């Protein structure tokens, strides 16, 4: 690690936080319907859909509307992927996807996971990319943010049933937040070299006279929303490591900015909705602390290089370069990896399967901590609020008081639902990994021998269940077993977690807001932040440490002992 490296990391994070402050304010204004510069478009959507944006929905109505929008998105995307061979804008003449692959892909993009069992430039038409996958990048992101707004409102008011109108939130976030940001970020990416064209692939004659087929496509706009919406699904097979998807250090920095700015901004939006900005700031600080710690961990591990290669005569000065591009440098690879896994994005600018064992452990563990650091757009905030409830509950147990958060009493019902919610992740990840490790049909997908093989399988289910989408890519994922079970894992976390969260929001919304008293535990100070960080870390650690010991840690110690597989 070098000082210049940390200066690059610090610069990007400062730009993220500096933008999150006004963006958080703006999203709060959008959420309350005060932003109107695209009024005609907004009204057109409401009229055509027959919805009244002023009519509030209770938690059930809100959640059902979200599920319906996502179900409709799934049906349309599945159809486009299956039928792409017959549809226009397919200059390479790709066939429709197989049904298992189309099912997995459609679930993946609707749940904001963007796990990819296909390679973009070799299997997906321009139409499928832009009118299928990219549209779900917008809509799944808007769904997540809408839900976070609904949950925030539950803490803002007392004695109400209604959490807002899903259709209003969904439409406004898409039009006023995601679309303008995507245009700006997209243009910046084009300027740096990301293609945006409907022309077909180009055949070049190289200097040595060989033929080289260069893939193109309407990539920049889709890549912009892929980061802004923390979706992560690459236009090209190797994602942001592709020179067209991540053409320079500046481009990768813009992508890091884009994949973190909305999750951080939403903390501040939350602070504004509950009329106490300090609360939002406290959540942001905890998230940022984890991002910094994770970046340091990855940076240290990767910059040190692979000791087995050093022994063969490789200079360790550049670090572990297998699977990494020259143009980003280790500091931005570390920050990109920490934010893409912390923020549930899943895009990669270096290949995680070839990371050193500890460098690969960090992103794996970040996802296992529940995708709240800072988490996906919206899902990070509502996930974090579940951990907040668990933290005040733990604090309440210690002093023997009924726990409260923002004046709302947290009681048995909320804690039961919160516990149910957080158990979905370990049950899904560990259950499905365990089953897959004894099924020959699943084990045959593993590429690496030794403990790294377990890491590949564990990472796949962790990534799917956490709605992340990054991968230890050696695993052959396009098989019926993995396509099917990974899709189930994605659906479980997105929806089986979301329903208890919405039930908590409904239950909290109905409670009166008690004024703060001398006995109230302040939830904006360092004591609470420490407690929250501790709860996240201990809960995740207790659940996943054994699996991490068997995978990446075992590999780490094997390498130190000079053992290979």
């Amino acid at each position, binding site marked *: 690690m070098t000082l210049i490296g940390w200066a690059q990391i610090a610069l990007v994070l400062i730009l993220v936080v500096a933008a999150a402050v006004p963006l958080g304010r703006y999203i709060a204004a959008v959420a309350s319907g005060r932003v109107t510069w695209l009024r005609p478009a907004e009204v057109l*959507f409401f009229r055509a859909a027959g919805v009244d944006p002023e009519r509030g929905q209770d938690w059930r109505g809100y959640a059902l*509307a979200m599920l*319906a929008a996502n179900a409709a998105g799934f049906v349309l995307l599945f159809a486009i992927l299956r039928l792409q061979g017959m549809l226009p804008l397919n200059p390479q003449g790709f066939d429709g996807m197989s049904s298992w692959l189309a099912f997995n892909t459609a679930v993946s993009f609707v749940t904001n996971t963007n796990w990819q069992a296909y390679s973009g430039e070799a299997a997906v038409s321009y139409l499928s990319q832009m009118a299928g996958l990219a549209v779900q990048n917008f809509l799944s992101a808007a769904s997540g943010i809408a839900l976070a707004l609904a949950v925030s409102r539950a803490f803002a008011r007392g004695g109400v049933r209604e959490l807002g109108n899903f259709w209003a939130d969904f439409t406004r976030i898409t039009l006023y937040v995601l679309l303008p940001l995507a245009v700006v970020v997209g243009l910046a990416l084009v300027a740096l070299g990301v293609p945006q064209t409907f022309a077909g692939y180009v055949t070049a004659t190289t*200097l040595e006279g060989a033929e080289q087929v260069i893939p193109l496509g309407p990539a920049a*706009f889709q890549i912009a929303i892929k980061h802004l919406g923390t979706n992560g699904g690459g236009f090209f097979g190797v994602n942001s490591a592709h020179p067209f998807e991540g053409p320079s250090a*500046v481009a990768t920095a813009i992508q890091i900015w884009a994949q973190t700015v909305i999750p951080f901004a939403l903390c501040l939006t939350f602070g504004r909705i509950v009329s106490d900005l300090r609360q939002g700031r406290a959540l942001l600080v905890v998230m940022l602390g984890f991002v910094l710690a994770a970046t340091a961990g990855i940076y240290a591990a990767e910059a040190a290089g692979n000791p087995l290669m050093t022994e063969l005569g490789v200079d360790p000065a550049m670090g572990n370069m297998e699977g*990494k591009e020259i143009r980003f440098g280790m500091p931005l690879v570390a920050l990109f990896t920490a934010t893409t896994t912390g923020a549930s994005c899943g895009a990669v600018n270096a290949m995680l399967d070839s990371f050193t064992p500890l460098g690969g452990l960090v992103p794996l563990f970040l996802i296992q901590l529940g995708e709240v650091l800072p988490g996906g757009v919206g899902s990070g905030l509502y996930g974090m609020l579940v951990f907040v409830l668990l933290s005040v509950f733990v604090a309440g147990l210690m002093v023997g008081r009924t726990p409260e958060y923002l004046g709302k009493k947290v009681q048995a019902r909320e804690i039961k639902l919160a516990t149910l919610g957080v158990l979905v992740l370990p049950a899904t990840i560990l259950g499905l990994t365990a089953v897959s490790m004894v099924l020959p049909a699943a084990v045959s997908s593993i590429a690496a021998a030794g403990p790294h093989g377990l890491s590949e399988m564990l990472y796949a289910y962790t990534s799917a269940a956490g709605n992340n989408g990054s991968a230890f890519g050696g695993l052959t994922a396009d098989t019926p077993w993995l396509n099917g079970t990974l899709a189930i894992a994605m659906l479980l976390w997105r929806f089986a977690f979301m329903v208890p969260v919405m039930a908590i929001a409904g239950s909290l919304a109905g409670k009166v807001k008690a004024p703060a008293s001398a006995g109230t535990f302040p939830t904006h100070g360092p004591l609470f932040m420490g407690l929250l960080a501790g709860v996240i870390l201990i809960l995740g650690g207790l659940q996943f440490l054994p699996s991490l010991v068997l995978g990446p840690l075992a590999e780490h110690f094997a390498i130190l002992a000079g053992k290979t597989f």
Partner: protein
Amino acid sequence: MSILRPAATMVVGFTLLLGLAMPAAFTSLAWVVLPAESGGSLIERDGRVAGSALIGQNFASGRYFHPRPSATTAPDPQDRTETVNAPYNAAASATSQRAPSSQALLDTVKERVAEAGPAPVPADVVTASGSGLDPDISPENAARQVARVAQARGLPEDRVRAVLAENTTAPLLGFFGPARVNVLRLNLALDGTH
């Protein structure tokens, strides 16, 4: 019924807006404002496309600077179900996906180290990139190739070193990102040097 209509309308409406109208408008805008970049930063030589400035290509001749190893493959012409090594096959970006503890990876690296000359070898000389299409090499890697290229071209080493220096990209503002050498641009510059 009350939620099916908004769900279907919104998904179809947003597909028309975000999936067709916006990409069409955005593509037109990009084409007008940034024609070269939006079209893939293609480089033409003698009226033909010689490659893209951003996409690495394979060089084996001693006259050229060589790129990093690449893990891309192509379908085997003998048997379409199998693949063969095809470095810098841009139609199918790929990485080795090898674990750090993989014996196969270490065997490959060992062979490359043996061919690479005096140790310690810069890491990018013997490792495959994330995309298999890395257009760049490190300045240290390039410096080790100067003597070979100069000899093959019958040019003084200082001349080659000067072309290399001109084609080395420094970190932005002196600190952001690593220094790097675009192999295709460097080799094109060399071909224009006499």
